[in-house]
C-alpha cells in the first residue's frame, strides 16, 4: 500500500468525496487562495496546503474563499447544510472558534433537537489543533473538550494518515455536524493509505500497542509522546496498552474499560489544560464503570493550567512529554 502523509490523506479524502457527491463543497479562508489577486485563485490551498489543488479540480463554485468572518463561514455552512449541501468548512486554527462558537453550539449542534428531529446539518468543521510550533497563546490551543461537551456534535481527532482519511470520509457522509481536528504536528506523519475511498466508523477506539501492565490513553499529537514513553517503559519491563479513542464524541467506553479491566492501572495523556478536559472525562467514566478493576489512582498527564507560552523552553515544558508519562506510568504500576 502507498505511504501517504496525514496532509495528503486529508486532501485525498476531500477530493474523492467531492468527486462522488456534487453537494460536497469546501468553504473557508484561503482554502483556494488568491481570489482577486493579480495571478488569480487556486495557487495556495490553505495556509498549510491541505486543500491544495481542489480549486483547480472543482472550481470556485465548490471551493469557496471567504472574507475573514468566521461566524458567517459557519453560519453559511449551517444554512447550506440545512438545505441539502454537505459543506466542509475550515476554521484555520481552532483557537479562532471563539468568534463563531455560537453558530457551532447553539445553532448546528441544536437544530435537530430543537426542531423535533426534522432538521439535519451534515457538515464537517476542519480545524488545526496543538502546540509545539512556537505559534503563541492564540494559535496553539487544543480545544477538543470544548466540542466534546456539546450534545449534538461529533468530534474526531485522527492520529495517523490511515485514520485521517477513513474518518474524514465517514465525517463527510455523516448527517450530523462533525468537528474534525487536525494536529499540526502530525501533518507530516506517514502511514500506508489505500488509494480508494474507505470509512472508519465513529466511536471505535484502536489499540495502538498491547501490554498488560498499564493502560495509556492518548489523543491527537499526544500519541507520539505516549508511544515514546511505552518504548522506554518496555525497556524497564513495563508493558503498556495504548488506546487511541480516535473520536472523543462518541467515545468508545467499552474498549477503554476493557483495557483497564486487563491492566488495572490507567494513565491518560491529553494535550490540553487539566480542568474539565477529556482526560478528566475519561477518568471519571473509569472511576465509575471501571472502579472494580482499578488497582491504582488514575493519573492524568496534561498541560498545566496556563495559556500556551511562546518561548521554546517554556512550550516544550508545557506539553506532555515522554518523561512525565513514564513517571506517571511507573507511579501507577508501583502503587500498592
Amino acid at each position, binding site marked *: 500500500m502507498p505511504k501517504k502523509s496525514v496532509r495528503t490523506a486529508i486532501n485525498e479524502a476531500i477530493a474523492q468525496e467531492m468527486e462522488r457527491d456534487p453537494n460536497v463543497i469546501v468553504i473557508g479562508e484561503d482554502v483556494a487562495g488568491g481570489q482577486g489577486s493579480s495571478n488569480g485563485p487556486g495557487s495556495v490551498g490553505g495556509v498549510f496546503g491541505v486543500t491544495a489543488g481542489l480549486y483547480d479540480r472543482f472550481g470556485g463554485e465548490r471551493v469557496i474563499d471567504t*472574507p475573514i468572518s468566521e*461566524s458567517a*463561514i459557519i453560519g*453559511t*455552512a449551517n*444554512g447550506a447544510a440545512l438545505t441539502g449541501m454537505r459543506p466542509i468548512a475550515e476554521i484555520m486554527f481552532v483557537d479562532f472558534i471563539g468568534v463563531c462558537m455560537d453558530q457551532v453550539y447553539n445553532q448546528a449542534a441544536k437544530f435537530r433537537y*430543537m426542531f423535533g*428531529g426534522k432538521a439535519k446539518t451534515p457538515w464537517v468543521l476542519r480545524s488545526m489543533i496543538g502546540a509545539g510550533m512556537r505559534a503563541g497563546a492564540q494559535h496553539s490551543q487544543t480545544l477538543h473538550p470544548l466540542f466534546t461537551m456539546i450534545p449534538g456534535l461529533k468530534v474526531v481527532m485522527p492520529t495517523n494518515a490511515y485514520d485521517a482519511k477513513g474518518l474524514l470520509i465517514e465525517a463527510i457522509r455523516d*448527517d450530523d455536524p462533525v468537528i474534525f481536528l487536525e494536529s499540526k504536528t502530525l501533518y507530516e506523519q506517514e502511514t500506508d493509505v489505500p488509494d480508494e475511498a474507505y470509512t472508519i*466508523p465513529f466511536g471505535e477506539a484502536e489499540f495502538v500497542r498491547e501490554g498488560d501492565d498499564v493502560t495509556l490513553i492518548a489523543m491527537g499529537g499526544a500519541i507520539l509522546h505516549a508511544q515514546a514513553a511505552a518504548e522506554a517503559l518496555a525497556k524497564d519491563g513495563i508493558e503498556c496498552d495504548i488506546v487511541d479513542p480516535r473520536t472523543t464524541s462518541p467515545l468508545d467506553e467499552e474498549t477503554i474499560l476493557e483495557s483497564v479491566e486487563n491492566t488495572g492501572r490507567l494513565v491518560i495523556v491529553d494535550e490540553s489544560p487539566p480542568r474539565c478536559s477529556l482526560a478528566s472525562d475519561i477518568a471519571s467514566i473509569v472511576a465509575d464503570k471501571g472502579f472494580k478493576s482499578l488497582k491504582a489512582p488514575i493519573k492524568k498527564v496534561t498541560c498545566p493550567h496556563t495559556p500556551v507560552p511562546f518561548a521554546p523552553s517554556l512550550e516544550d515544558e508545557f506539553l506532555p512529554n515522554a518523561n512525565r508519562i513514564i513517571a506517571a506510568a511507573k507511579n501507577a504500576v508501583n502503587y500498592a
Partner: protein
Amino acid sequence: LHSNLRRLAFPPNHKMTAPRNREKPMQLQMSRDDLIRAYRRMTAIRQFEERVEKEFANGNIPGFAHVYLGQEASGVGICHELTDDDWIGSTHRGHGHCLAKGCEIGPMMLEIMGKEGGLCNGKGGSMHIADFDKGMLGANAIVGGSPPIAVGAALTQKLKKTGNVSVAFSGDGASNQGTTFEAMNMAVVLEVPAIFVIEDNGYGEHTAASYAVGAPSIAARAESFGMPAETVDGTDFFAVRDAMLRALERGRAAEGPYTIVTECPRYLGHFVGDPQPYRSEQEIADARARDGLVNFRGRVTEAGLLSHEDLDQVDQDIAKEVQTAVEIGVSAPQPDVSALESDVYASAY
C-alpha cells in the same frame, strides 16, 4: 461632523425614510384571492398573538413569548410572493413569520404550549419553531443568529440555480450584531440571493433603536456594504410587498443580496408581561394608531377590491381556527419522557 449626522430617531421622534421608486398602484398587481390571502395571514397573526397573550396569562404557555403585534404587514408583505422553495430564517419573535410563510395555526399553538404534535413536537417552543415543508428554517433565539444561516441557504439556491431566495428576518437590535454585518458582506462577496429584512420596531428589548443604532440610517448602513437597500413603512402591506418585488427581481436572477428595512412600531412590551415603564402612553397610542390591518382594510375597501363583508368573514374564520387550536392545545398531552434523548443525532451515535 458626527454631530451633524441625523441619528435614526424612531421613536420617540420618528422620521420615515421615503421608499424609493414605488411603482405601479398595487391594485393592478393583485388578484382578489391574493388580497384575501394577505388579509387572512395578517389577521391570523393578529388574532393568534392576542390569544397567545391571553393563554400566557392563563398559564397555558410556558416560558417566554415575544409577540408580533403591530408588525403583521411587514412579515406578510415580505412573504407574500414567496413559495415553499423560498426560505426564511426568523427570530425570537417568530410567530408572525411562521404564519406569514404559511405555517398552520394548530401545530404552532401546540408547539408554543409544549405539546405533542407541535411543529417541533414540543422540543423547541415559541423561540424555536421550524417548518421545513413551508420553507421556514427556524425561529432563532440568538439575536443575529439567522442572517449567516440565510446566506448559506441562499448559497444552496445559487449553486443549484433554483431561482429561489432566502430571507433573513432581523430586528433593529439584531442589526447591530456582528454576525449580521458579516452575513451582509459575505452575501455580497458570494453574490447570493439573500434578502435581509430588518424590522425596525423601535426597540431592542427595552433600549430604543434611536440609541443603539449609531448610524443615521440602518438602510444606508446596509447599502454601504455593497447592496441595494431601502426603507419602507412596515405597517403598509403594499409598500412592503412592492419593496420585496424589487428585491426579488434581483434575487430570482441570482444577482446578489438586498436589504429592506420595515418600520413597524411594537405594540406591546418586549415579551408578554413587559410593563414597558420606558414608553409613554402617547408613544404606545401612536404606535397602535399605525395598524397594518386597518390600513389594508381601508385601502382595499376604498378601491372596491374587497368588501367589509369579505374581510369580516376572514376575521370570523380565523377566530374559529384559533379557538379550536387553543382547545386542542390545552387538552393535548406533553411529549412522553421517552422523547428526551431522541433527535440529538441524525446518524448513529
